[in-house]
């Protein structure tokens, strides 16, 4: 049955998955040529939610553009803000107090856990299991409540400032984080029992959509997609920034290259993020959260600057070409899901539609982040 047969054009049909389809988690469109249940070829069509963030970056001043970053990826917004503030601080030469950097790391990691939890729930829902989503959302809700208290918002944060933070954290926040860590570890155990060990789940994911190291490198994949294929690359470790060198954490890497490996990487990352938060809370220094002389108007000197950060989706790079005025000359956003998504077209040829959509779930796509 699996022998490839040359198909007549009228034996296949075109199926549109998206833009309004439950599997794509947004307005991604995948045009699939189908032979019954098998995919002959697929083409991802993007741009349904293009908002010209890069152009906005050019016409707005630096502080004005700052809040656009958290609108790119609504699930892990703090990571993107972090990249932007780090870049501007590097470009304009602003000193950041150590306490601010620690708080940034703690909040970014909390946000990463929230994002992974949502992905976990949505991924299992793609496979037809609904309950884990509800459990994951309850844990995520706890994180959002904590972050709301100190940042003032739940989803699209504008918490960081060039040089520091908008608001200091208090004892109540630290208490709730300390309560959260054991709670999350307990939940993780529950998820592994409920989902990871489930025979249906394992049978569907093991060996599904093998991505070779070469394919990942060719498309510039990052995050769990690359690490599930045995590429030991994490920006926090390979191009250290902020206070990450101070922390002791592992980069989970799996060599199976299938959807299960990608799933395991993300679940292990939650545990590693918990470790970082634990150490961050323990090492948190006293001091100011904003530098004494933060510039009112930001005018980075002429030049070319680049900053990469590891967000929940992967390697997010932001490049700034400054001409010395208060608007950037060019601002390029390298979004990780954009690279990860393009793996889909090549890999899903010959797969069943069920397996292809399970694979799509394992890529952790956030559409506004692809389209920018």
């Amino acid at each position, binding site marked *: 049955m699996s022998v490839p047969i040359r198909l007549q054009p009228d034996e296949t*049909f075109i*199926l549109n*998955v998206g833009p309004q*389809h*439950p*599997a794509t988690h947004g307005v991604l469109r995948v045009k699939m040529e189908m032979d019954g*249940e098998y995919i002959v070829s697929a083409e991802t069509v993007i741009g349904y939610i293009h908002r010209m963030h890069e152009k906005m970056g050019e016409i707005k001043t630096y502080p004005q553009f700052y809040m656009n970053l958290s609108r790119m990826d609504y699930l892990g917004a703090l990571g993107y803000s972090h990249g932007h503030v780090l870049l501007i601080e590097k470009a304009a030469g602003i000193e950041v107090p150590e306490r601010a950097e620690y708080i940034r790391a703690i909040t970014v990691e909390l946000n990463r856990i929230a994002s992974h939890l949502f992905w976990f729930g949505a991924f*299992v*829902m*793609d*496979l*037809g*299991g*609904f*309950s884990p989503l*509800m*459990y994951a959302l*309850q844990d995520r809700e706890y994180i959002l409540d904590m972050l709301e208290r100190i940042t003032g918002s739940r989803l699209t944060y504008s918490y960081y400032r060039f040089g520091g933070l908008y608001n200091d954290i208090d004892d109540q926040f630290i208490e709730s984080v300390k309560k959260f860590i054991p709670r999350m570890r307990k939940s993780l155990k529950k998820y592994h029992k*409920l*989902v990871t060990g*489930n025979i*249906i*789940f394992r*049978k*569907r994911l093991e060996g599904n959509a093998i991505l070779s190291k070469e394919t990942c490198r060719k498309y510039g994949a990052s995050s769990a997609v690359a690490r599930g294929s045995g590429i030991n690359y994490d920006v926090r470790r390979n191009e250290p920034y902020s206070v990450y060198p101070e922390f002791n954490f592992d980069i989970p890497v799996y060599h199976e290259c299938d959807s299960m490996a990608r799933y395991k990487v993300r679940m292990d990352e939650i545990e590693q993020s918990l470790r970082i938060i634990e150490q961050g809370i323990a090492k948190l220094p006293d001091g100011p959260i904003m530098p004494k002389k933060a510039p009112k108007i930001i005018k980075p000197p002429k030049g070319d600057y680049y900053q990469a950060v590891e967000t929940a989706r992967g390697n997010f790079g932001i490049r700034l070409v400054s001409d010395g005025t208060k608007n950037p000359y060019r601002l390029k956003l390298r979004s990780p899901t954009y690279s990860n998504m393009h793996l889909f077209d090549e890999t899903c040829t010959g797969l*069943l*539609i*069920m*397996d292809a*959509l399970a694979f799509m*779930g394992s890529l952790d796509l956030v559409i506004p982040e692809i389209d920018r």
Partner: protein
Amino acid sequence: MELTLLNVVIAVTIAIGFAALNAAYLVWAERRGAGRIQNRPGPNINGPLGLLQPPLDGIKLMAKQLIIPGGADKALFIAAPVLAMAPAIVSFVTLPFSDTIIAHNLNIGVLAIFAFASLGGISLLFAGWSSRNKYAVMSSVRAVSQAIAYEIPMLVTVITVVLITGTMNLMEIVEAQKGGIWNWYFFPFTSGLYNPLMTMSFLIFFICALAETNRAPFDLGEAESELVAGFHTEYGSMGFGLFFMGEYANIVIGSCLTTLLFLGGWDAPLPVLSFIPGVVWFLIKIYLIIATIIWIRWTFPRTTIYGLLNLSWKILIPLSLFNLLLTAGLLKVV
């Protein structure tokens, strides 16, 4: 019982009433159960414990427009939901609820119910094909291949029970299991027939019942993450409502059959407890099975289509055939 017109009308009315009530309130039970499993309240606004939710949903569905897509085959499109619901209700007429409560005692009760049940597969095919929607077509082909794959092990397993009892009358099958939990057919040491594989037969039948009613983890026909809503993508209003009720009516039939064939029907688990009326035991048993089905749905992810077909063709069919031969051999020896 004298077969007068009045008797027939009363019996049919009761059967329809039971089917409709069960179908409606299982939706409520499923949503409440899902809520309990997922740490949320579920429907609790309309009436005490949200008990008015099903009738209100029904009224809402009736007040919606019955949209027929432009390219659709109108006659088939309208016939499909009726065909999904009607056979399910007819099956109730032949189901015994206790040694006295039965609308009509058919000699070939088992066969009649399976005959009606296989009409359900046709309704899915009608719905998918007449909608002229690619998702619906894919879903209906899937649903049919699933229904036929699981019909064989189910039928063969039922033959095993028919073999032991020597009858196809559901009342007599239950009578053969009388006398406490150790006589029920799900139990390995049953009715003087020491067939160690009967528990497996029971499990095969239960799995097939799940698959035949398109329930999770075998709900491939309505796999919402790839086929949107499957065969009923184009249905709104009461068309959707009938599919929905038909599904739940089928679940009730599936659990009734499981109870009758393997769990001793209305027989009390211990002879001491037989002062409680049989119909109470019967209802307890079927609702326990339904609760299990709901529990499974909210716990497991969906299988794949090849996993599903492999399970049936490579495991269940050989196993059930083997068990049939073993039972026949044991019957001859003992």
